[in-house]
Structure formats: C-alpha cells, structure tokens
C-alpha cells in the first residue's frame, strides 16, 4: 500500500470509530469527552524560567544583572533558576544549542545599524553563533533591516529610526547598558598608553618606552581563552578581535570610526542601482609569518571560507558564525591578478559594503585543509560542523604585526614583533593617523600576556610591578583600588559593546512581546548603572545606544522613555505588575505565584 492510501485508510477508520462511538455509546463517550476537556483545564503550574549567565570570575557585571533579574522575577511569583556557566559553556548553551529561557551577556560589537541584521533577521534563525540566537521572527523588522542595508543618506537614517522603534517596542532582547572600558597601566617604563577598544595592535603602536631597548612588554589578562584557542572563527570563541588583530592583517581597518586602507593600498568603489563593487589593490610584498606571499587568492579564499567553511563540500553551506553579517553581503569575489581582487554586492550601500574589508585574511595553504568535517580522535562528529570552526589554531600564521611565539594553557601567551610587517618596515605607507602615532617603532621585541583569573589578581600584579598594563577589561569594582595606587593609571573609554538580556522567543511565555516588555521593566537600569557599574556605563534604551543613530525620543532621559522600571529605587511595585500581567492574560495562584498560560 502506498503512503497516500495508507493515510486515507487511517482517516476512514478513524472517522468510522468516531461515528460508531457517537451513535453507539453516547453516554460513555460524553463522559470521556468531558474528562478530556477537564484534564486539559487543570490548574496550570507555576511559571518556571531558567536564567543563564556567567560566574563572577568571568564577568561580575553580567552575574549581578542576572541576580537582580532573578530576584525580581522571583518577587513577582516566577520560579527562577539562575544558572552560572563559564563563558565557553554559556556560548554552547545559548548560541549553539539554544537551551535557555533568558540569558545575560555582553554583546561585543554593535556600533553600526547593519550589526542588527544577523542578530535579528529571520533568515538567520537556526544558524549558530550570534545569528539570531533569540529565534526571533518579524516580517516588519526583516523589511526594515533589508531596507537600511540598501538605502543611503537621510532615507537610511529614517529607516534606522523606524527600525529602532520597532525593536524597542517588541524587545526581542533587552538592551541594559553600554559599559565603559576600564583598563589600568603603569607609567614607569612605558608611557603613552592609549587604548583602542577593538584592536590591541593599534594601542601598542602608540606606547613609548623610557629605555631604548626593552625586550619584553609584560601585560596581564583575565581571558584564559586566548591560551586555549587562537582561531578567530571558532564557534565558542568570544570576540577576540583584540588578539586576532595582532596575528592577522585585514585589507582595511577601522581607524577613528572609518575603514582605512591597511593591507590594501586602497580600493575603487563603483555603484549602480542594484550592485556595488569594490576593486581592492593589495600592498606589494606582503608575506605571511611562514614566508609564503600573501596574494589576492588568499583574500578571495578568506571570503569563500567565511561564507562556507566546508568550501562547497557539504550539501548545505556552513558559514562561519563570526563575521556573518559581513560575509553574507558578498555576492561574488573575483581575483583579477595577484594583487587585485573584485568584490561584488547586491543591494548593499557602500558604507556597509566596506565592512567586509575588516575581516582577517587567512592563508589559504593553512586553512584549505580545515574545510573537512570536524572530527574528534579521527571520527567525524557532525555533518554540520567543519574543522575550521572547532580547530584551536594553536600557532596562528597570519601576516599581522606580531608573530606567535609560545603559549601555556591558562598561564601565558607570548608573541614576537614581526619585523617584516609594514608597521616596522615602512610605517609611512599606512594611514596617516597610524603613521603619525607610530614615530619610533614598536619599542619592544616581545609581548608577554600573563593569565590570571580575577581582576583583583590582575591589579595585584600591576601594583607589584610584574606587569605594565591590563589587556582585558576590568570590572568597575576595582576602580577605587586603582585610585589608591600612586603608580597606576586608570583608563576609561567608551566601548562598542552592549549588555543584553536575551529572550528565547520559542519558549512560552517569552514568545509573547507583552511578557518580554515586562522583563525589560523589571530591570532598573539606573540602579544597575550606579550600583553594578559604579557609574561607568550608560543605560541602554535602544540596541544602538552609544551610537549617533539613536533618535531623541529613544534616548535615556533619567528613565527609559519606552519601558520605565516598574517601581522606584530598585524595589518593585507589585500591585502595578499584577494588574499589567492580568491585562496581558496571565493569572496568579492563591499564594501569588505567576501561573503558566
């Protein structure tokens, strides 16, 4: 019997049974029917939610926001379980497996409107990484995200304003605060510390040494991950732009907010109605750390690898989660000669298109072999994961200003100055802003990053003089201690990151925008700014808070203009919350537990 016939047969028999029951034993059937109805109308259980975040050792700010949220959810009658996961484990839970209800995390880089596209567009649902981890789908927002990518000038500006209003209204995730970057350094041996948030190498070129030959610049970081994996596109890796910029060059780099030529001498931009093309010319004589020349083939290979890390081997492409927003814009890439490559985009404005130039350039001869399926001890473990996404890349080979020297897991990472790099050979060829800052060369041969677990330990090493600066961002709780130390300088800068509460919109009741808006209103952003950040943050209202794109009616005005805190001075107004939830169709048990809908 074919499948079709099979189905029909079942349907017939089921109908027959139904009919016979109806006629034959109306009494019993009626009774069972009532039983079924009653069974489905049991008093629902208390609503339970799992809130996931990292422990204090990894990010004390996220832990504290998580605690506040958990306490407030508990107060309104939700059964909360606050679970702490180390950073890589949290990534696995949230960004790969989507096993969560709510999570608190810092999203690393949200400076431009196009960064919202991979985060929220429905076409990215089901991809791993920061590609729509909320599983959020909304036609209106999709259209606005696409429109802003094509439009320019004031038209785009208007679209981005509409987009923010829509996002703020629906709260697929709750923007909490934009933190300041806090770092500390000593000024006895090295001076002129000026930190760039994105790129450690740009910070380091500005450093001057008081002595002529200093062999090693000792630094400290709390990010042990840099001693475990140096693969910039690994699934579980955090945004390691800081460190990967040491090893890898990109065609262009963001310098003071615009993309400037770096490994490229420049690019020609041409646009028609539909298509934008970038024709990029590489600098002559670029080489990777192992001596292999860097050519246009490597650039084209990198873009192809980011778009599909299986390089066409798998049935379904496996894009690299990182740089996904950038790689997904590129329509085609063509090598014109050894030093020229043409990138074509459809429906992308030039301002957005040039972002592709900031991805690291990978050597084809190293990475081509990583396009195979990922394996553990020689066994294929997945048909959807490639080696490129799980490889630890223990000794990275790039063309960047520093070469890998050695690494001891959870203890230290040592890198060497790459004297063949343009930054040392001929800095005047680089963008003026970099060239100016870089007058006397990098004043050390080696960079040693020591790993500690806590900010307290990092600051201890700094005050005792064992290291000259902290690389990782410090928590606000150590700021008073920095102030007490004479020899230590504090650096506070704006950061491009954003603390968010992510909602798994596939889980009830988080699919309900009314409930997500309630969660936003359980968070007192002003108290968080003062108590958790010690003032070193700005409360976030829109996901683009901290950029010039936020319209005046969405800016922080002492309170959140759209979703003000449900209460005063950190304590909740329970009455008001109950009536809000009742209006939204929720019910409470006799002992004020919030019930599942």
């Amino acid at each position: 019997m074919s499948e079709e016939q099979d189905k029909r047969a079942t349907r017939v028999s089921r109908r027959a049974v139904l009919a016979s029951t109806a006629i034959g034993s109306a009494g019993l059937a009626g009774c069972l029917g009532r039983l079924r109805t009653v069974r489905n109308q049991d008093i629902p259980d208390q609503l339970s939610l799992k809130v996931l975040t990292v422990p204090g050792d990894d990010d004390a700010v996220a832990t504290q926001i998580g605690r506040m949220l958990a306490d407030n959810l508990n107060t309104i009658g939700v059964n909360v379980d606050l679970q702490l996961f180390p950073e890589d484990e949290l990534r696995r839970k949230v960004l790969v497996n989507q096993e969560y209800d709510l999570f608190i995390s810092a999203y690393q880089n949200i400076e431009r409107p196009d960064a919202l596209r991979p985060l929220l567009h429905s076409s990215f649902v089901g991809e791993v990484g920061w590609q729509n981890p909320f599983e959020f789908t909304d036609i209106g927002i999709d259209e606005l995200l696409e429109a802003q990518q094509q439009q320019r000038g004031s038209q785009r500006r208007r679209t981005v304003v509409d987009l923010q209003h829509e996002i703020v209204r629906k709260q697929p995730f709750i923007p909490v605060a934009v933190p300041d970057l806090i770092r500390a350094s000593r000024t006895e041996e090295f001076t002129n510390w000026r930190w760039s948030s994105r790129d450690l190498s740009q910070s380091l070129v500005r450093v001057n040494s008081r002595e002529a030959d200093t062999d090693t610049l000792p630094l400290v970081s709390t990010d042990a991950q840099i001693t475990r994996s140096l693969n910039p596109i690994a699934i579980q890796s955090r945004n390691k732009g800081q460190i990967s910029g040491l090893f890898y060059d990109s065609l262009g780099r963001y310098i003071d907010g615009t993309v400037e030529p770096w490994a490229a001498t420049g690019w020609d931009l041409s646009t028609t109605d539909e298509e934008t093309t970038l024709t990029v010319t590489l600098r002559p004589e670029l080489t990777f750390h192992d001596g292999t020349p860097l050519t246009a083939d490597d650039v084209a290979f990198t873009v192809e690898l980011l778009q599909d890390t299986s390089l066409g081997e798998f049935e379904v492409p496996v894009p690299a989660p990182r740089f996904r927003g950038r790689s997904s814009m590129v329509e085609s890439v063509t090598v014109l000669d050894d030093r020229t490559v043409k990138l074509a985009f459809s429906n992308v404005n030039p301002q957005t298109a040039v972002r592709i130039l900031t991805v690291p350039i990978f050597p084809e001869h190293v990475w081509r072999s990583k396009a195979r399926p990922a394996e553990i001890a020689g066994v294929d473990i997945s048909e959807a994961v490639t080696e490129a996404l799980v490889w630890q890349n223990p000794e990275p080979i790039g063309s960047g200003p520093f070469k890998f020297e050695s690494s001891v897991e959870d203890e230290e990472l040592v890198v060497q100055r790459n004297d063949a790099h343009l930054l040392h050979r001929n800095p005047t060829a680089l963008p003026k802003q970099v060239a100016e800052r870089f007058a006397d060369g990098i004043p050390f041969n080696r960079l040693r990053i020591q790993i500690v677990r806590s900010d307290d330990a990092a600051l201890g090493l700094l005050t005792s003089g064992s290291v000259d600066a902290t690389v990782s961002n410090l928590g606000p709780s150590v700021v008073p201690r920095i102030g007490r130390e004479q020899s230590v300088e504090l650096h506070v800068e704006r950061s491009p990151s954003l603390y968010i509460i992510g909602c798994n919109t596939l889980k009830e009741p988080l699919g309900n925008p009314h409930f997500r808006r309630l969660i936003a209103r359980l968070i007192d952003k002003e108290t968080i700014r003062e108590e958790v950040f010690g003032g070193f943050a700005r409360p976030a209202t829109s996901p683009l808070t901290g950029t010039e794109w936020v319209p005046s009616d969405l800016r922080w005005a002492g309170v959140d203009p759209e979703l003000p805190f449900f209460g005063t001075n950190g304590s909740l107004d329970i009455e008001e919350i109950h009536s809000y939830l009742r209006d939204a169709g929720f019910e409470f048990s006799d002992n004020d537990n919030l019930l599942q809908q």
Partner: protein
Amino acid sequence: MTLLIQYLQLVTVVTVCLGVGLYTIVGPARIRSFYVDYRTRLCHGLAHLSVLGTVFGISMYWRPIGGEVSWTLEYNITHTLYSIEGYLVPTIQELATTKLTWALSLVYVFGYVFLVLFPLVSYLFLDTLRPFRVTALSYIINYLIGLGSYTLFIAYGPRNYMPGEVRGLMYEVWPEIEALTTHINTNTNVFPSLHTSLAVTVALLAWYTRDSYPRWFYLASALAGTIAFSTMYLGLHWGTDVVTGAALGITSVWAASYLAAESDEQSRITTTGQQLFATAGDYIKQYRP
C-alpha cells in the same frame, strides 16, 4: 614561575610548622624512642601512605575529566545553595578588616596544609599505628566522596554567584595565591567544602588521641574551627558546603574507625603492602649484580 614560587613558599612554611609541631607536641622523648624501631613503623605506615597518595593522584588526574562529566550531567546546584541560606556569607563578610583577612587567608592556605599533614607525621610516633591508619583511611574516604560530589554537581561559591555583595577577600590582599588555588581546584567545585571536612576529620581524630597529644587536640580544634569559618569569610564556600563538609568529616572518621584494623597484622593494606614491598625488594636484589 609564580606558581613554582608559591609552591616553594608553601613547602617551606609547612615544613617549619611541622618541625615546631614535632618538637612541642610530639616531644623529644617520643622522638628518641622512635629511633628504636623507626624502620618497622615507616614500613607499616608506607602502605597506607601509598594508597592515600594514589587516591590523591587519581583525584588530581580526574578533576579535568570530572569537570567535563559535570557539564554533561549538568546538576547545577548553585542557585539551590543560595536559596537555602541567602545572605549568610555577605553577613559574615561585614566583619571584614584587612588584618582579619590576612590572618584567615594564612590559616586557610598554610594552616590547612599543616593541619592535614601533621597527623600523618605525628601519629607515626605513637605506640600503636592504629590512629595513623584511621587517619589515612578517613582522608581517603573524604577524597573519594568529595570527588564524587564534585563530579556530580556544579556549584559555584558565593564569590562567583553574588559578586558585588560578596568579595573575594583573599585575592584582594594576596593576589599571588590565586595561581596556587586555581592550580589545585576549579571554581565549580565548592560542594562540599573539603577544607572543612578534612579539618573536622583531623579535629575528631585529635580528640581520640588527646591522651597522647593533649596540646594537639586544642590546636587542631582551634584550627579546624578557624578554617571552617575562613572558607565562608573569604567568600569561597557557602554555609551549606561547610555544614555538609563537617558531616562528611564526621562520617569519614566513623567509617574509617569501623574499617581500620585493630593491629598491623590484621590490616589488609599493611600486610598486602608488606608483601608487595618484599616482592619488590627480592626483584631488585635478583637483578642487582
């Protein structure tokens, strides 16, 4: 480098403490009489020490694997521990002063290692080795149960769960020690407190041997109480970990004294050890020219 220095520092301080302890607690008379039959005593003790050493070695080796197992099982009990006791640890931390923090940190690190090692040394000088055997066995039980619990449960300490409210006091005054503590254990293994369970174990055993070493009983109880308190004061453990740890300590001593043989001849570990050592000795003799 820093790690090596930390270990050297620890070894030096503890060795000095053990030396002073031997002189003041064990006393010259017992040390002199030890010379008479020290070979037999060491020989008898060695079998138990080897077993203990093996268990310790296995537990160090198991920790990273156990960590992976914990994350796979995912019994994350931190929130439960917090729900049980709430603000106990932050309340204790209201007592914090720099001097107290230093004192308790030193006791937590050096005092603890001394407390745990001293019985293994001093009980070799007693007339009977039974207390020594009970000590070794109860340590083994502590380790095995502790390891089982660490593998089964994921539990972060108050310092990690309530940052902002609970301070990592020890790392603030003594950042260098972090290298040592993180080398020995991971921050997800707080339930139960092995510091407390072993300290309680030692204090209980000291009570049993109080007739021989009266001073040790007072010192051991004082140290044990201080250690249990310091784990909470320093923000490393929950009160629940400490209570469970104390229960584990008591259980292990009870179980060990039940299991341990009355005499060396009855102890299966000692006799098996003797046979093994003898065989090994013969083996070496055979191949030596």
